């Protein structure tokens, strides 16, 4: 990709950072979102120099500045891989909910590991560990939330990195975006929703489709779980439903005291 033209921003040519993509335990869907953005893929590729992307390209270089790491750590060999990436990268990006919070994978942590292994593999030996997000192992410089990540947000953040601008996240919850989009409140349609407590930035992706929020982007600043529980209960939802939503992607772990079954 070295011969494609560099992008200009406000008339000034932008140096293309060397980026690499890596995946730990994950569905690799967040990476695929890059290839899935047909309309803007070529623009994206003119902004960065992709030097490693195993799912999409053979070969590759270990000289990169920005590492996008998808997935959570679920086996000891992933610890070493992640540390090596940390040593090489100037900027390490936790890419998607699995990397930021453990994602759906961390639902495994509800059980003891011996039972988990036996349930799936019987007596066949298999190695696994408690699921951890990247920042439990290494320093994480940037987080791109979501299951899956939203391509517009990825592109905005990459652009900001390329031009050396600060990265900011919405401090407010999904509810704000949902209201701005003019949606009928999911609670009025009889659906549970974590919109009041989840960090915005997805443009209320699920509520726009009449599906309640499951909190994949984790908590917004100053969110109030007790108020959410009150709303949920007033609309007739059980503690189990509340917990199912809050614990699904791992973003609210640490806020679940008193809610455990």
């Amino acid at each position, binding site marked *: 990709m070295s011969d494609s033209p560099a992008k200009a921003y406000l008339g000034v040519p932008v140096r293309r950072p060397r980026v690499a993509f890596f995946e730990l335990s994950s569905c690799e869907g967040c990476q695929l979102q890059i290839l*899935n953005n047909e309309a803007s893929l070529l623009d994206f590729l003119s902004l960065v120099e992709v030097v490693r992307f195993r799912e999409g390209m053979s070969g590759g270089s270990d000289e990169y500045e920005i590492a996008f790491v998808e997935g959570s750590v679920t086996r000891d060999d992933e610890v070493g891989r992640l540390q090596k990436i940390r040593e090489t990268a100037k900027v390490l990006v936790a890419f998607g909910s699995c990397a930021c919070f453990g994602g759906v994978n961390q639902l495994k942590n509800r059980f003891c590991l011996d039972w988990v292994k036996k349930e799936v593999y*019987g007596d066949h030996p298999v190695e696994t560990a408690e699921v951890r997000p990247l920042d439990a192992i290494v320093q994480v410089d940037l987080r791109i939330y979501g299951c899956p990540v939203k391509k517009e947000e990825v592109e905005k953040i990459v652009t900001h990195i390329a031009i050396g601008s600060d990265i900011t996240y919405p401090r407010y919850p999904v509810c704000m975006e949902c209201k701005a989009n003019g949606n009928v409140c999911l609670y009025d349609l009889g659906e549970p929703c974590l919109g009041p407590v989840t960090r915005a930035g997805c443009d209320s992706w699920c509520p726009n489709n009449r599906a309640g929020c499951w909190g994949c982007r984790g908590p917004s600043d100053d969110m109030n779980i007790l108020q959410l529980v009150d709303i949920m209960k007033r609309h007739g939802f059980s503690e189990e439903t509340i917990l199912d939503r809050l614990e699904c992607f791992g973003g609210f772990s640490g806020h679940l005291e008193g809610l455990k079954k």
Partner: protein
Amino acid sequence: MKIDCNIDVHHLTRVEGHGNIRISIQGGVLRQAEWEVVETPRFFEALLVGKKWDNAPWICGRICGICSIGHTLASIRAVENAFGIVPSEQTRKLRLLLKHMETLQSHILHLYFLAAPDFLDVGSVFPLINSHPDVVARAARIKLLANDVCDCIGGRRLHPTRTVTGGFTMLPDKKELEGFRSRLIAVERDLIDTAGLFRTFTIPDFIRETEFVSLRGVDEYPFIGGELVSSDGVVRKEHEYRQMTNEYTVSQSTSKWARLSRESFAVGALARVNNNFSLLQPSARGVAEAFGLAPVMHNPYMNNIAQLVESVHVVMDSINLINDLLGTAWDAPRQPVVQREGIGVGAVEVPRGILYHCYQFDKTGHIVRADCVIPTSQNHANIQHDLTALAVQFAAEGMQDRDLELLAGMLVRSYDPCISCSVH
């Protein structure tokens, strides 16, 4: 004649997930040919236990980043079968249309971005942006259409939002469906050109007699539910899937393996085409015939061509489905769900082959046991046996290391494996 050869591919590229190829030939004798899967298990079957039924499709879609729609639909079907829910005709058609467009986007992703670079002797699709701009633009155009339809019907191309037990949270705008119909009609030309491109590629000449397993179509080429069939003549009901898969563990793989009548079998586009050839849309059958693809085809590299054939089929069938949907007034988007104790199985043909989800629910609607059998898990043993036969055949012909390494990588890629999915 070639005497020695050592191939060691760590984390094969341009496939989903992590697998290694090792081939060792000494003195013209094959010492080792191994397809090793080292992916970390995520234990979906365990983490579902104790969860209420409505969690299953939402969580299980996350098994796969390529075929999340297929996983969601298999999960929904398992829940609906357990609760005795029969989807409405409207829901059935919308799900099939959604499924078709996932098949199209996945096949095109594989054909152009993952497989074609091998035939064009480049490492990825990226150099083709400059050397073959028309080809890349065409691939992007087809994929964009498929993904746009998925966004419209499923709410989102990856990890869909509108697909729920009982139907959909909301329905697409009919105006949008009309627009997609026009784009589908226009994309036929792109598929003809795709066939033209693949006609310029040399498909490796390698045959190994194989058992093929898929859904069995009755009136239409099968994608969602129905009987299971193998090219060796085994027929089973959907709920008897365990007798079709017979999963077992092996030391070389964190994914389970499967077998039926022989030491291994294959699933995927080639299996579906082999088992349901007469049910393909006529123009899709025409493409198959142009490539000499007729049942039963035993060359695994022809799975690429089978994906091309299916791409044509799903486009033609999607036009018909949209015509049907536009010809009737919208019914309610979803039907009520009443939970009950029981076991449900959902079998769905996803891009890489037949996928099964099975859940056992207690009377409060909580999952007691879960089982997911992934297409690529069913293919791993067959890939291993193909790899051994390939190494023996080409070592005897005195092939160079680099060529054998390329052919071995292309063999695995032909199956379009979804490795993290297979381990889940």
